[in-house]
Each structure stands twice: as structure tokens, then as C-alpha cells.
């Protein structure tokens, strides 16, 4: 499913990387340990994490993840936003928890 459609359905706010809204989201990965994400997340995944420092963009870019979603209204670092725009990695924020996001993705048939 296109990220643009997911954003509309889940009411996700685009914080950065708006150029990547046509990305196809093919899976979901939830984890905050960067080495773990590095070795397990797959290309095209929506990555849900509470980490908001700029190095998450490096991880997402290296793995060609579909987007980063920051749950529970957590504030995103300014240099993360700058880097996300540079690397065209969409960063979305929302008030939902990681669990609520996961169930919503499941209902949309993503990540099965």
C-alpha cells in the first residue's frame, strides 16, 4: 500500500521526507535497538520506533525502509528532520502507540 494512503487512514502527520509518500509499504518492523533493526528489518518496511535522533535516518536509508513512524506524540529532533529531507526518508508522527499502529497495519493486511 502507498504510504500516502496509510497516512490518510491512520491520520499520520508528515514531519519530514514528504517526497517519499509514494513509497510502497510492504511490511512493519518495531524495535528501538539499532543493531537489531539493522539485521532484521526489511526493505519497504514501516519502522516504528521511539528513537528520534538523526542516526535512525542512516539506518532507514541503508536498509531502504519505506518510512519511520514515531508513536505517542514523541518530539522529533530538528537534525533528524533535516537529514530525513536530505535522504528522502519519510518520518511520520502520530498519537497512537506502537501496539495500536501494529494492529491498524494488521487490519490493512500489511506485514502478514
Amino acid at each position: 500500500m502507498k504510504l500516502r494512503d496509510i497516512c490518510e487512514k491512520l491520520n499520520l502527520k508528515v514531519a519530514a521526507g514528504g517526497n517519499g509518500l509514494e513509497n510502497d509499504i510492504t511490511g512493519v518492523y518495531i524495535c528501538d535497538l539499532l543493531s537489531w533493526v539493522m539485521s532484521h528489518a526489511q526493505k519497504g518496511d514501516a519502522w516504528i520506533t521511539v528513537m528520534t535522533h538523526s542516526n535512525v535516518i542512516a539506518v532507514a536509508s541503508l536498509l531502504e525502509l519505506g518510512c519511520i513512524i514515531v508513536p505517542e506524540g514523541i518530539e522529533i529532533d530538528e537534525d533528524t528532520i533535516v537529514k530525513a529531507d536530505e535522504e528522502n526518508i519519510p518520518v511520520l508522527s502520530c498519537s497512537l502507540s506502537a501496539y495500536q499502529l501494529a494492529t491498524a497495519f494488521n487490519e490493512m493486511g500489511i506485514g502478514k
Partner: protein
Amino acid sequence: MEFMKYTFDVEKDDFVRAGEASSNIKRTLRELGIDSAIVRRIAIATYEAEMNIVIHSVGGQVELEIDPNSIKVTARDRGPGIPNIELAMQEGYSTASEKVREMGFGAGMGLPNMKKCTDRFTVESVYGEGTTITMEILLKAGD
């Protein structure tokens, strides 16, 4: 494909630029048309090595060497070195600071990830001098 060599500097504690060497290496390999599964393995291993230099060392370099038979990445730092390599290789063992762990690093998976992703992996370290990690992925016809 002829022999090619690229070198990237990696600075201590520079978390903003951290990952750029890995990014450049990945881009170079993709431009050469290297198989995407191999590019992913190199990207993961290189990122871990680069982050180790940022987190644990006083600074260093990551070097990429490509020839028709293999892709080799060497991560070399200027110290302080690893006192006990056997311990450092254990999954879950980490000497990372609390601050770095709060950023999601320091899971003790860096060196094991590098080993898993590559065909040849060596760590040489002299405490007080520095560490050199050599990683190689062998290419077959068509990669």
C-alpha cells in the same frame, strides 16, 4: 571490473554524520550493479563497523576495496583497542556508555552482526594502539 579502492574518514562521537561512510559504500556498490542481497550484507556490516569507530574509538577510517573476486571492507581506528576480543565477540556483551545505550546502540550485536554478514571476518586489536576489522564478501560470476 578493475581493482578499486575508496577511503572514508570516521570521526569519534559524530552521531550526525555517522553512517555516511556506509551510505557512500552502498551507493558505490549499487552503481557498480552488485547484487542487492550482497549490497545489503555489506551495508549492515559496514554500518556496524562505522558505528563502532564513532562510539568506541578515538577516530579512524573505513576503506572499501573491490576486485572481480571480492568486496573487502577494512575498518581501522587509532585506538584505544579491545582488551579482550573473545569477550567482545559474545552477542550481548558491550562496553558502550549509558548515554550511547539510550540512543539505541550498545546492544552488543555489532561484531557478531559483522561476522554473520560476511564470508571472511577478522579482528586484530592491540590495546593502547587500535583495532583493525577486515571483512570480505566473495563474489561469484553474476553477482
